[in-house]
């Protein structure tokens, strides 16, 4: 049993994992912010476009959401990191992971916001427009605030999933928690660093997973 909790190995692994926590958090927060913003912008555009010339834009946004829902995030990350350089685009591991996670979350967030927007009763649009609000104002002041309430639980869960998916970045040599643990594990031939990393992930994500569960019961979506 001692090999799993070897104090010397744990002490050697801690500084790397400690700095990995900063990288994990930095990558998680930046891709969550980018993904949610992207999803909100796309859903807004999709809700506001009208008329024949712009109709295809809505279809394109829906297609984007479909493609990135179907694509495994790791496949996307590997393509961005290992194929893009052939086009002269050299992304660092961190940038590739940021773009991949942001695009994937953007697709789910667009879907979630869109579902929220479409669930707002048609009468709300009509009432807002009849008071003289423009379409944009009606959207911003009447429809969106009601839509956002419905989006909070699923969006929280997708954000947590994005945070956990930062572990994928270890594959493209980003020195986040898992990558740091794996490199010490390779040097020491001991499973202790991996267990330490697992403990770090549990400490980071267990409270969030519990909070997500609480939100689901607090704001039921169905």
């Amino acid at each position, binding site marked *: 049993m001692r090999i799993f909790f070897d104090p010397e190995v744990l002490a050697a692994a801690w500084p790397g994992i400690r700095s990995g926590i900063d990288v994990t958090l930095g990558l998680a927060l930046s891709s969550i912010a980018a993904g949610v913003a992207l999803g909100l912008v796309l859903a807004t555009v999709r809700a506001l476009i009208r008329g024949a010339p712009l109709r295809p834009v809505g279809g394109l946004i829906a297609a984007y959401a479909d493609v990135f829902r*179907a694509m495994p995030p790791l496949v996307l990350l590997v393509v961005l990191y290992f194929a893009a350089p052939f086009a002269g685009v050299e992304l660092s591991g961190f940038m590739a992971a940021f773009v991949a996670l942001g695009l994937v979350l953007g697709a789910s967030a667009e879907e979630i916001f869109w579902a929220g927007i479409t669930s707002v009763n048609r009468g709300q649009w009509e009432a807002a427009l009849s008071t003289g609000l423009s379409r944009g104002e009606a959207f911003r002041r009447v429809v969106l605030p009601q839509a956002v309430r419905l989006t909070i639980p699923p969006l929280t869960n997708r954000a947590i999933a994005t945070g956990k998916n930062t572990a994928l970045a270890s594959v493209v040599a980003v020195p986040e928690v898992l990558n740091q643990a794996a490199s010490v594990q390779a040097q020491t031939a001991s499973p202790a660093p*991996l267990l330490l990393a697992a403990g770090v992930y549990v400490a*980071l*994500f*267990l409270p969030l997973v519990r909070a997500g569960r609480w939100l689901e019961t607090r704001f039921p979506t169905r």
Partner: protein
Amino acid sequence: MSEFFQTFLNLEVMAESAGLLARGLLVTVEACLIVIPGGLFFGAGLALAQTLAPRSVTGLLSWGVDLVRAFPPLVLLVLIVHGLPFLGIEPPPLLGVGIALTINTSTYYGEILRAGILSIEPTQWEAARSTGLGTAATLRHVILPQGVRNVLPDLAGNTLEAVKLTSLASVVALPDLLRMARVAQGVHFNPSPLILAALLYLALLWPLVRLIRRLGGRAVLPA
């Protein structure tokens, strides 16, 4: 433009790596055939346990489920595949991957099925029991058929996630589709196999995404 095709959609390279990718696709399918039925089986067990067990037990179960969910799937996978050998257990790679991903995905299937069971009115239970059905028969003939139907879109959604999850197997050297695409890319020094693999994943999963949308059937925004 032709240079672009030469680099990213090189048909010659794609044709030469087709064999490797086909072998990889087979491994991906094998992994799915372990993870999806396994996840559904243990998920159903979890859901039933959470429905039938006394409150104290269900509270513990929900903490257990959340503990598993707190692990990024890749961390769980690496821990099991690289950690078990230190306990003297060395499962074949496909089985190790199967175990790790089944543990992960069964917690999601479990919560979905539980929500399905909870979506059935208590009066259905009472009516079934009053006709003389036992608990097991009530579940089997009355609750589950309706409950599962209610969460079909979510079950399909989690199955999509489970298939996507199998791409993680490439990280622990299982020769799945993604891994073989990387190998072929190395052999030809050309990214076309990677692009082909990505397109294969899309071809495999896009219909599933469309199906989920059909099952979900949402209202449209007033134009």
